[in-house]
């Protein structure tokens, strides 16, 4: 392995891969076998964080940034005048193993520009994973990109070596996709996703009968959508997301605030700020759907197509549904506790444990770490001091915001100024 050559390739191909926001290494359960190298820790580990505050868990690179497609939002698009490079299979294997041995990473996230054809590209990705597993006895985490249009046979093989497979739908609507990525169509993304979903179901059911059935993509599938590139509203984004969660059993959908990389007039211009606050609200909504028992229709619907920027989506829902409150923390069930603004799932579980011993009052809740600034208007506990005024939603919102110091305050005032 020639140091200088690999160094140059690494710089180009890591830089090109960075717009894929997923760096998760969780959800797998691969043990170290035969005294080999590595295992996939169930919870995942972030080995460092970049200066933008994102987790670095995997060696995230492209195999090559040569690409036959010309998607407007992508830095690797054919028409972009940039330096191109390509790794050899062995170079990726060596880098992964040596980074892993030094405890820099949890494994490899390998993606690629599409060169020659979908199958040709997918085959190279699979051969890297295969080599790591079979020749190096590597049991760390491998995330491979499913190349849109790749054959079923290759996707089946990919899942045997990878922990996670993902295909990025990138643009939330089909019209948007037609406009920005005329070479691609939705069906090509769906095909490998569908195949992997079915294989996962099949391998899981076989595993119940025959213990020695090999693992197939144990950390499941994920996808990513770009936010703010093609004019979709929050409802369109989250309904698409919900559709993919429901129909393809996805483990994660990632939302990536669009980072302007081109002067193409179809897209936000270079210098436009990345919509980080909006991205944050979308993730909060995603969490409400996956962990807090909310339905998407409760948060986003015809009358409410946008998420509030100044308050979180759970508080927004609560303010629109004041008739559901106040909730008695000493009696309510888990579902309703999880709906109180200011209570995270950890607090919910602590409350459920602690209230078996005695009735909880404000001091108990405070000691448990409940954010009372928000929660106080929505709950009652073992105390006769609670909100007695008949407050309107507007008033409550004002009182909460008065006492909130958001990390987004500066961003918020900028964004509001744009409209105000």
């Amino acid at each position: 392995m020639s140091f200088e050559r690999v160094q140059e390739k690494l710089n180009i191909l890591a830089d090109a891969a960075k717009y894929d926001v997923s760096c998760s290494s969780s959800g797998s359960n691969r043990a170290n076998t035969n005294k080999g190298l590595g295992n996939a820790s169930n919870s995942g580990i972030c080995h460092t964080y970049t200066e933008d505050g994102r987790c670095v868990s995997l060696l995230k690179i492209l195999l090559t940034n040569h690409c036959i497609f010309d998607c407007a939002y992508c830095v690797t698009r054919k028409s972009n005048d940039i330096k191109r490079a390509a790794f050899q299979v062995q170079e990726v294997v060596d880098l992964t193993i040596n980074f892993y041995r030094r405890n820099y990473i949890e494994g490899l996230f390998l993606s690629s520009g599409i060169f020659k054809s979908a199958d040709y590209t997918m085959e190279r990705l699979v051969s890297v994973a295969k080599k790591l597993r079979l020749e190096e006895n590597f049991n760390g985490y491998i995330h491979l990109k499913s190349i849109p249009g790749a054959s079923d046979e290759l996707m089946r093989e990919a899942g045997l070596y990878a922990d996670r497979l993902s295909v990025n739908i990138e643009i939330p609507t089909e019209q948007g996709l037609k406009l920005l990525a005329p070479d691609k169509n939705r069906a090509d993304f769906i095909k490998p996703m569908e195949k992997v979903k079915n294989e996962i179901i099949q391998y899981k059911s076989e595993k119940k009968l025959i213990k020695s059935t090999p693992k197939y993509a144990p950390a499941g599938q994920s996808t990513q959508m770009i936010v703010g590139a093609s004019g979709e509203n929050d409802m369109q984004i989250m309904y698409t997301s919900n559709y993919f969660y429901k129909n393809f059993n996805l483990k994660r959908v990632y939302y990536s605030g669009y980072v302007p990389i081109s002067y193409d007039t179809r897209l936000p211009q270079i210098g436009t700020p990345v919509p980080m606050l909006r991205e944050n609200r979308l993730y909060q909504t995603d969490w409400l759907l996956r962990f807090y028992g909310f339905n998407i229709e409760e948060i986003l619907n015809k009358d409410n197509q946008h998420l509030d920027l100044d308050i979180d989506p759970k508080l927004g829902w609560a303010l629109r549904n004041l008739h559901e409150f106040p909730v008695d923390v000493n009696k309510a069930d888990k579902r309703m506790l999880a709906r109180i603004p200011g209570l995270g799932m950890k607090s919910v579980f602590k409350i459920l444990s602690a209230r078996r011993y005695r009735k909880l009052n404000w001091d108990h809740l405070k000691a448990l770490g409940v954010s009372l600034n928000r929660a106080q208007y929505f709950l009652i506990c073992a105390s006769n001091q609670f909100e007695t005024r008949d407050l309107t939603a507007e008033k409550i919102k004002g009182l909460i915001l008065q006492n909130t110091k958001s990390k987004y305050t500066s961003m918020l005032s900028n964004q509001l100024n744009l409209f105000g």
Partner: protein
Amino acid sequence: METTLIYDGTFDGFLTAVFTGFEMKLKTVTIVTAQRFQQPLFGSSETVYTDAEKANRVWRGLKQKLSANELRRFYYAFLSEKPTVEDTLFQAMVYVFASKINVGSDYTNVHILEISKLTKNVGREKHRMEAFVRFKLTKDGVYFANIEPDFNVLPLIRNHFKNRYADQKWLIYDLKRKYGIYYDLEQVDIITLEFDADFDPSKTSTDIFAEIELEFQQLWNDYFKSTNIASRKNMKLHIQHVPKRYWKYLSEKQ
């Protein structure tokens, strides 16, 4: 009258002190390590000699009262080395043993809640060390890392590294507590090292480390820079995730 029990700093020693405390039916007791002990103005003190059998009896007693998770919290909290943690644990044990039902998750009890908070802190430090250990390959073919964790987490990360790096020799050394764990391809042993006066743990001297070590550090540093998105820069978040006190042994932060 207050009694101070002095123990050797080990977990077994602490449990022996708890045993002694119960045996003497002491209500107000302070348990401290020999290192931290200062002769109090009033009250008596007694040195406890670690006794594995007594320690086991206390642990087995707790095991009958608590779930596995709650039991684990007592050990995690102990490893926090917080100056008053022994008293917190003792008071919590008095509460646990005095109750007919399992009160291990009664967060309305200040001692139980404190233990749960310390467990969270220690657990986070354990996780950080699993992340922030940076091995450097020595000339002798050992992957070496030095750390200075806030809490005594080497006993907690031992299995993680043993399971993961089964085919390489490695050594993780806690410079603050002056001991390390060494895996020789067979088992993990506790060791202590004497460092040369000119040994600088934040540098990679080629007297000690393999030549290729610097190349891989360079590649890792390059990767760290390339994977960053400058237009999303957020140093506050960065420092929240990677607090500055950890930077000196992270090659990407040099």
